[in-house]
């Protein structure tokens, strides 16, 4: 099985004391059972943006940045560039995507809607949800 992970999960792993440990446990379980983790190549940019905001807000010391970036890069996630944009749009429409944001109701939500051009018949999209009890 392949899982497509959202940037919010990786950002939470690196910065969120409340949810990070729970997500870490899930990531560990996935690795143990051989789940492959995939993400759009955009994810590192989103993680960099989040780190920028935290440093600007004084919540993360700038000196920690190289260590934080290296830690994010160590996670065994395969990143995928969008090589077939038209195919990705067609697939998203076929799966019912109608708006850029959708309500999120569970803590670690699994969805069959791809968050990038990468998708397989046996993939799920995983994201942290706004309803996360520890968020």
């Amino acid at each position: 099985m392949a899982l497509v992970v959202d940037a919010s999960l990786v950002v939470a792993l690196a910065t969120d004391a409340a949810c990070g440990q729970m997500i870490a446990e899930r990531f560990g379980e996935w690795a143990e059972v051989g789940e492959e983790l995939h993400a759009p190549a955009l994810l590192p940019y989103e993680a960099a943006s989040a780190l920028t905001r935290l440093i600007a807000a004084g919540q993360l010391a700038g000196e920690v940045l190289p260590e934080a970036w290296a830690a994010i890069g160590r996670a065994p996630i395969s990143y995928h560039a969008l090589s077939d944009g038209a195919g990705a749009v067609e697939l998203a429409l076929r799966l019912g995507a109608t708006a850029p944001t959708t309500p999120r109701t569970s803590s670690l939500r699994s969805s069959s809607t791809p968050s990038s051009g990468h998708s397989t018949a046996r993939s799920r999209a995983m994201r942290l949800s706004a309803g996360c009890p520890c968020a």
Partner: protein
Amino acid sequence: MATDDHTVRLDPDTYSVLESEAGRRNVPLDALAGELLRERLAETSGEEGTPERMRAALAALSAIRAQVKGPVDAIRLVREGREELERRSLRWPSS
């Protein structure tokens, strides 16, 4: 070792560091580049299996998490980043 010609584009600073290190070691630049690449790639994706790599990554991420001050809403952080990108895109003049 047999070699083939390939082109890898480097920014000037990286090339300069590589060139100076190759000079210091008195080895051909491409041999040094190959050696460094093999070493680094072996560290990140070589003998270590995915569970071990994940454990190492999670330990490193946990250490970072412990250094963050105050509560963080990761969803909001990512959403705001996306919204900012969207706003910037909207400001771009159309051709």
